[in-house]
């Protein structure tokens, strides 16, 4: 009913405006005025509206600035964020000046030089001095902006120092996982084919390879059994799908076996420096903690589609791209607790959110980030369980059993 009323009001409104316009049209016709002749009063009205608009425009702008100032992001909680905030401020000052000057000129001239049949416009096709002036001045200002901006950009993107701590932020539809390198301080290698419920990041260890191969073998068995039993009654599409799935499992298993060989050779050759030798003690958690005032190198990865790791309060952002690792270096400078005091909000949290369209629940892909003093951080980290228990003598035996069972179709 309400909708109907609104529609009715709108339709009537349009009709009223249209009728009014018709009346004008008819009276104009009577007076012998043509549609393309703009009357002096129309010109004056629009000229005044230009001025009025300019005032309203600036008013609206300033109102937004004042009214919403406290809703903008608060002080930056990272070191580089302070630099970019300063850079932003400098840019704003320059742009505000240009904004007000150009708009004032535009709207002032538009309203000021309204048509007068007794006057002629100035004949002024060009003026090289003026044109040179407003080519060179913007160029000089822009060169300043470019140099300042690139200086900051280079500082932010320069390589992390060797003693920076490393943490991995891992994205999938629609949540985040964090990984810490564990006691050895080195992240283990990963492979997306090893991903399963226990190993959401696909960390490569002898045990995770063995488990994954077992899992794939079991799945293959089950499908083959299903096919053998129900081949006659299965719809052809389903049958084809099952066969395709078996093939894919075989391909995946073959790749994992190849990976295992690589791993074994690499460990044999490089011993402790092999990236394959560091997976077990990695810490994989659904919480994200960082110590304050310590340089952190974030490794950012994705399992499925492109995501973007964005922490607005730390002015940090980098895309998570499947198939590659991106990095972002930063130094958190304010703890969650201090920020709660600053914001006067006991429930305040730093948030890591997804900022690249990634699917239906894109709008709710988030993880809280806790920035805390180093000792609190260390306590928290000590409580976290490593990804896998240190390799027991049992592990190699599990490996050998799967090797015989695995459906080998290596090419």
């Amino acid at each position: 009913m309400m909708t109907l009323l609104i529609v009715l009001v709108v339709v009537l409104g349009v009709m009223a405006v249209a009728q009014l316009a018709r009346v004008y049209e008819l009276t104009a016709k009577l007076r012998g005025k043509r549609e393309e002749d703009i009357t002096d009063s129309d010109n004056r009205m629009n000229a005044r509206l230009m001025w009025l608009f300019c005032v309203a425009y600036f008013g609206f702008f300033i109102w937004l600035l004042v009214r919403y100032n406290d809703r903008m992001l608060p002080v930056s909680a990272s070191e580089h964020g302070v630099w970019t905030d300063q850079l932003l401020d400098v840019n704003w000052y320059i742009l505000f000046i240009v904004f007000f000057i150009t708009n004032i000129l535009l709207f002032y001239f538009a309203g000021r030089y309204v048509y007068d049949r007794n006057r002629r416009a100035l004949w002024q096709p060009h003026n090289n001095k003026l044109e040179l002036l407003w080519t060179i001045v913007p160029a000089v200002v822009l060169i300043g902006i470019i140099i300042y901006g690139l200086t900051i950009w280079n500082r932010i993107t320069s390589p992390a120092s060797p003693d920076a701590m490393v943490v991995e932020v891992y994205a999938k539809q629609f949540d985040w996982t964090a990984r810490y390198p564990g006691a050895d301080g080195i992240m283990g290698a990963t492979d997306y084919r090893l991903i399963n419920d226990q190993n959401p990041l696909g960390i490569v260890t002898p045990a995770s390879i063995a488990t994954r191969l077992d899992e794939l073998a079991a799945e293959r068995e089950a499908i083959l059994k299903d096919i053998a039993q129900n081949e006659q009654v299965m719809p052809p599409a389903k049958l084809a799908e099952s066969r395709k799935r078996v093939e894919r499992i075989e391909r995946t298993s073959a790749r994992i076996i190849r990976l295992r060989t690589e791993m074994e050779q690499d460990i044999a050759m490089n011993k402790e420096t092999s990236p394959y030798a560091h997976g077990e003690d990695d810490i994989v958690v659904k919480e994200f903690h960082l110590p304050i005032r310590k340089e952190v190198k974030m490794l950012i990865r994705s399992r499925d589609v492109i995501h973007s790791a964005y922490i607005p309060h730390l002015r940090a952002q980098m895309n998570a791209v499947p198939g590659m690792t991106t990095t972002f270096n930063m130094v958190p400078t304010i703890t969650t607790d201090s920020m709660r005091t600053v914001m006067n909000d006991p429930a305040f949290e730093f948030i890591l959110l997804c900022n690249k369209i990634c699917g239906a629940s894109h709008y709710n892909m988030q993880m809280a980030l806790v920035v805390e003093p180093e000792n609190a951080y260390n306590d928290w980290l000590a409580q976290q369980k490593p990804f896998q228990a240190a390799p027991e003598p049992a592990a190699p035996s599990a490996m050998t059993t799967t090797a015989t069972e695995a459906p080998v179709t290596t090419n």
Partner: protein
Amino acid sequence: MGAVNTAHAGHDHHHHHEESWVSKYIFSHDHKMISKQFLITAIFMACVAVIMSIIFRLQLAYPGEGFAFTNFFLGDKWGKDGILDPNMYLALVTIHGTIMVFFVLTGGLSGTFANLLIPLQVGARDMASGFINMLSYWFFFLSSVVMLSSLFVEGGPASAGWTVYPPLSALPQSIPGSGAGMTLWLVSMALFIASSLMGGLNYVVTILNLRTKGMRMTRLPLTMWAIFITAVLGVLSFPVLLSAALLLILDRSLGTSFFLSDIHIAGEALDHVGGSPILFQHLFWFLGHPEVYIVLLPALGITSEIISTNARKPIFGYRAMIGSILAIGFLSFIVWGHHMFLTGMNPFLGSVFVFTTLLIAIPSAVKVFNYITTLWKGNIIFTPAMLFSIGLVATFIAGGLTGIILADSALDINIHDTYFVVAHFHIVMGMSAIFGMFAGIYHWFPKMYGKMMNTKLGYAHFWLTFVCAFGVFFPMHFVGLAGAPRRYYQYTEFPMFNGVTDLNVLITVFAIIGGLAQVIFIYNFFYSVYRGPKAVQNPWRSNTLEWTTPVEHLHGNWPGAIPEVHRWPYDYSKPGKAEDFVPQTVPIEAGEEEH
């Protein structure tokens, strides 16, 4: 259909060849009819896209609340109880963007005004190839039909954003719209690109080869220069998008790995190895950035024409204006990486793109200052077209300035993909281009239909649209500076975004009023087509060639010989002349300086 080459029909005006209804109104080779076809199609597509935007604006302002409006358009499947489905939300933003960027502001704007104005303003009987021109429209039409039909497939239309980044757009497991909807999107875009290339080649060839006697390149109206460079940009960049689309089709259907690698989705590790999603972004933005100027330049060209005519003053710095169009056109090809600062691209490469991007601000600033100087000491007549042109300058200033912020990679870190970006490109590219398009429609309506549009309704339309444009997009900067990402279905999941809820309501209210204001335009347009007062030959007392053609359209444009051109098009208020305008066809008098 009349396969007679209409380009020569006008040589002999005694020869009336009868045309069937189909060859006159459907498969017409006449550039004026084709331009109307483009315009009407674009107006229809624009209405669809505006309705979509109202639906998702309602959701953003009042998340989780039901609206009969939503239910009416989306039915129970996507709008149960009037609540927008999250997948459909993404589909709507995707298709809204696609339609606006490609179908309205590329096809609609270039298609309408390039077709209408090129032969008329350079002095040609028709386009170089009327047949290809006709094909260009019908490919555009087909492409529109395919795009609209994708709204009705099972999984919904493409939903990966108008930039369709893989893997999201490549894998139906990741979002339902990446199934049949995405296939149709790609088919539609392939048709669109074909249309755009056929049109573009025609525009370039016609402007270069079919200018009338005396119409040197340095006497071309700025509209022609803008459309010329636009066509060159399109011809050079659209094929790259086509290649990206083809590779994406291969990845989707034939198991190749151009853009896909190491993906584990829906509980399964995919076979794809070795591709790069970033490669797609490079290919996409190699078109995507020139595309911004493909949208914007014709609008700037139209504005140059209208501001000069209605300020009764020559456009200030004609050569500088041409120079800045050329500079913008050239630079637009080497800035695409500024869309990709945060993709893991080498930071040094990022620096290069910062540099080239910020350089574009220089020719843009020159253009703005030249417009303002053209107004200075002018004698301004406020036709609706003039109002929209001044509006364009205002939006170009506001949107151009925030571009300087976004081009700075260090600042982009924190505002990339937030509402700040949405605000920026809607103002600088969306509003500027649509204002240019409205200006063009009001200005050349008498040429297109031989009728006049109602001025008062034009005023109401302009002022409402102008106020609402800023009402919608200005507050979005603040939403973005609060850190709110774009393409979020709702912001209620984050306490930190509670502060922008009332801004979202404000934006939506302005959006609805602004959307309704377009009803005035639609009414005025269609009413005037049929019942508007009859136009005179040169209603705006303009200098350009198109106003020397008769009001009634005829094939070949001029009943007799094509007039010869003797001067540039901006001799307004020239000292020593009786009238305040001197058409291009008037010979230079003895002792008169050209300009």
